[in-house]
């Protein structure tokens, strides 16, 4: 699975290179930069390189699973490798136009990570407005690919734990696997009947429809604790996830779909996660909450250059309000994950709800901005 993921990441960066700004006859640099990641440090071998194709070799020398990111302004992801297990080394090949970036290691795959400034030097022709939108869809497609890779990986692990009868491991993996699903939910929802099969809730089903997917396994794990007959459901979930990932990776969202997706992810939070309806047996709703917000932020980040050109004040407001949501949410962190929905008070939920509404209102104006000329 890891090999496949790495290949998709690489092919995505090559795609980016084709669409990127590097059309002038600049010599691209192929100098490899080593990154030594531990649980407390992120030593990047160089803080500056020539614009073009850059390769980072990330060695995880810590005890926690880590991730490595290269961000442009506003946390727009230029490239990332996820799930680097302790002792392993992975490459990130990324196309960086001239500009200022940040590198980040995320030991434990949580939080903002250990950041450092990173600069790509040289010149690059600025994108035209339409090119910025085209770039947005390419950037977002890359994000989808990275998430779908992890989605398959973690869902397969989750299903294996279910089939092995390992209730404790399955319970621990359930919210982790869902994180990757929830980050890209608007993409998944395009593929009508697969979404309910994977993520349907019992009360949403029509009479005669079979209850399958994550929430069926959630019910088995938390409500009855008996997963001796859950094997076929777990197999079907993995098969369905593979099908939807294949579809997602061959679909490119339009800039308008991106904008609406960013809003829909927050609507998901406002209607399903705040109320605890989504994960009603496990109460792990805050994992989904965080993933929805991250997915929304990724979509906005992809649109950022286009939005900056059209309404910089809106971009600044979205930055502030994303930060407010993240700050409210951080108060409920528990270890590498989150508190249970049932551990939050009504006042906690009201605060989160207010912050989501404050963010979702301006985000609802992004689609019109993207559509405007």
């Amino acid at each position, binding site marked *: 699975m890891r090999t496949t993921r790495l290949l998709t990441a690489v092919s995505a960066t090559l795609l980016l290179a084709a669409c990127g700004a590097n059309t002038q006859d600049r010599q691209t640099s192929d100098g490899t930069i080593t990154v030594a990641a531990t649980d407390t440090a992120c030593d990047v071998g160089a803080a500056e390189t020539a614009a073009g194709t850059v390769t980072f070799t990330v060695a995880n020398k810590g005890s926690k699973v880590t991730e490595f990111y290269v961000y442009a302004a506003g946390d727009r992801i230029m490239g990332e490798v996820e799930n680097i297990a302790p002792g392993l080394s992975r490459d990130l090949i990324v196309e960086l136009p001239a500009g200022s970036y940040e590198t980040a290691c995320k030991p434990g795959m949580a939080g903002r990570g250990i950041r450092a400034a990173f600069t790509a030097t040289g010149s690059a022709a600025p994108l035209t407005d339409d090119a910025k939108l085209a770039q947005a869809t390419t950037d977002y497609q890359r994000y989808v690919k990275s998430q779908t890779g992890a989605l398959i990986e973690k869902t397969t692990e989750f299903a294996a734990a279910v089939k092995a009868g390992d209730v404790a491991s399955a319970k621990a993996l359930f919210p982790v696997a869902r994180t990757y699903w929830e980050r890209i939910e608007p993409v998944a929802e395009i593929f009508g009947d697969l979404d309910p099969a994977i993520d349907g809730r019992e009360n949403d089903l029509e009479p005669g429809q079979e209850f399958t997917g994550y929430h069926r396994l959630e019910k088995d794990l938390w409500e009855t604790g008996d997963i001796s007959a859950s094997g076929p459901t777990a197999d079907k979930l993995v098969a369905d996830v593979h099908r939807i990932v294949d579809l997602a990776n061959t679909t490119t969202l339009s800039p308008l779909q991106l904008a609406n997706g960013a809003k829909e992810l927050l609507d998901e939070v406002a209607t399903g996660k705040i109320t605890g309806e989504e994960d009603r047996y496990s109460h792990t709703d805050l994992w989904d909450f965080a993933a929805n917000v991250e997915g929304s932020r990724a979509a906005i980040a992809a649109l950022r250059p286009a939005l900056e050109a059209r309404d910089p004040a809106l971009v600044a407001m979205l930055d502030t309000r994303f930060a407010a949501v993240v700050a409210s949410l951080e108060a409920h962190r528990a270890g590498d994950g989150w508190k249970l929905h049932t551990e939050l008070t009504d006042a906690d939920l009201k605060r989160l709800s207010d912050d989501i509404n404050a963010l979702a209102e301006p985000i609802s104006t992004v*689609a019109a901005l993207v559509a405007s000329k």
Partner: protein
Amino acid sequence: MKRRNILGLAGAGAAGIAAAGAVTVRRRDEPATDPGAALPFYGAHQAGIVTPAQDRLHFVAFDVITRTREDLVSMLEAWTAAAARMTAGRDAGTHGAVGGVPEAPPDDTGEAIGLPASGLTLTIGFGPGLFRDADGRDRFGIADRRPDALAELPRFPGDALDPAISGGDICVQACAHDPQVAVHAIRNLARIGMGVVSVRWSQLGFGRTSSTSAGQPTPRNLFGFKDGTANLKAEEASALDEHLWVHAGDGPDWMTGGSYLVTRKIRMIIETWDRTSLREQEAIVGRTKGDGAPLTGAAEFDEPDLAAAGPDGLPVIATDAHVRLAHPSAHGGARLLRRGYNYVDGSDGLGRLDAGLFFIAYQRDPRRQFIPVQTALARRDALNEYIRHVSSAIFACPPGLPAADDFWGRSLFS
């Protein structure tokens, strides 16, 4: 665009048609004003206080969640513009419910398309928490502008207040003859305010329980009694001046021409009241149920004779009767302008109506008006057996806006 013009109607004749469609039957004793008409938004005092009480209420209290004064002020400016538009029967925003770009959510929510202004008034007030938070911090640099009269109300005996539906930093009272118009107004203001304010609680009301104009008949509350017979009325100019409007020198200048608002949600224990004898009901209130006449008189507006004794030597109007304890003579002449509404929030889990009176009173100074009156009532009123005060709030409602270059709260924040 006027909302009703979307239906393809235009001009004065069309306005008449729309209004006639909205209200087909008018009681003969109702004033002959057009219930669809728009009321002026600008004036020396805010509309919605002495305005003849409309039939419907949506009242909302907000918590301010921003820490930035600038954000709060610009929201108040946006609110004022939307309020001026909506009270004129227009959409909340300039593009309207269907006039914007298709990719954007409309800047008006649309449920009032085709409805006339319906006498909508929007009245704003500021609560004590806007000035200092619970920890005493000066939230927006206006702590020194809090009027002394705007202090949290004392706890009254028998209070059963739910903090979740009490208090609030800012309130807006929406009154209209059509409930959809009132709800539309609050919904749009809440939406405009997202990120700056958050709805703390809101209340729907119907069937005004007070007349605020001599032209209006006295309505009934859910106990079946006429309510507000002795209310301050719009026509009593000198009494309004004495009891309703804040004078220069009463407190900070920004409140001159304003009024203090107290709201109390008073749940009625309907089922036990309904099995109380007529004689006892009338004795508790001190008035007859049919005409609303004091027990010492023959007609509604007869002045109660609080000294009158019956053949048994006891007062005709009992010492614990509601009308006696609330009477201005018991409080140095203090009077209130009441503007309450009945409410029914469905039923509770025991099958009882969750219903009562949403009490609204405006006054010049609650320390000399609402507080002493309520203290007397809370201690001794025979009605207390049948009511519970479940929510309470106080707000300072500034004077009206003279013209469109002004906005709600400008005198407070500048």
